């Protein structure tokens, strides 16, 4: 039978190992040794990698619908979000889940130079429809991206959205980052 001193020593070793293992895990997550990383922003709580859509006024407050899904609507284009990149990646594969009632043209832009106007655009198209939500995918070459404190700025644009009186509602932004 184990005596209490032995149990205490085992417990102490475990207590010391917890922060050590956590720190190793943090290093692995920051340098992404596996080569790829996934994150998903569902607008319900802050995501450390994907920011909310800004500026306020063009993008409305985050709302919760009757089904418990959170979403953010945009009424004036363009709006922006930041992607935090803990290390250097080659490719970002985005999956947007959104509602676009008037099937308006939507473009996603990645900031490529350190001025405010240089963006590389990709068209966002409704690849599939799941429960009334469009799912669209776009891919970006991050080697061209402009980094500001490890953040990459993205733009969501739908020219003439304000004049159309329509709105575009986003419920999920997923990204797969590949080294």
């Amino acid at each position, binding site marked *: 039978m184990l005596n209490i001193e032995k*149990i*205490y020593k085992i417990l102490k070793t475990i207590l010391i190992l917890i*922060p050590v293992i956590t720190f190793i895990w943090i290093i692995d*997550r920051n340098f992404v040794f596996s080569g790829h990383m996934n994150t998903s922003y569902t607008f319900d709580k802050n995501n450390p*990698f994907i920011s909310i859509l800004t500026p306020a006024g063009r993008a409305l407050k985050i709302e919760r619908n009757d089904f418990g899904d959170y979403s953010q609507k945009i009424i004036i284009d363009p709006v922006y979000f930041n992607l935090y990149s*803990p290390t250097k990646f080659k490719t970002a594969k985005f999956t947007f889940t959104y509602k676009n009632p008037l099937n308006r043209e939507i473009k996603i832009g990645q900031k490529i130079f350190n001025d405010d106007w240089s963006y590389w655009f990709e068209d966002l198209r409704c690849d599939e429809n799941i429960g009334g939500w469009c799912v669209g995918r776009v891919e970006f070459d991050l080697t061209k991206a402009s980094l500001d404190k490890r953040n990459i700025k993205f733009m969501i644009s739908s020219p003439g959205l304000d004049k159309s009186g329509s709105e575009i509602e986003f419920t999920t932004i997923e990204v797969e980052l590949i080294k």
Partner: protein
Amino acid sequence: MFIKNEKLNHYFLKVINDIFYISLITFLLFSVIELFLAKFITSFVNMNILLITVFITGIITILNNKQ
């Protein structure tokens, strides 16, 4: 304390004391890293949980040392 057995009570307080020192050192270390490399730690770990652990175990440790 909840544990009546004196020996068990003694070890229980020793464990709380260890948790306090380990979580305090971890918190300070993580804070210094975060200061120089923003988001390095907080992107993955909730420092508030660590801080609450430091506070609770710290209060128990201080009260125990006073007795």
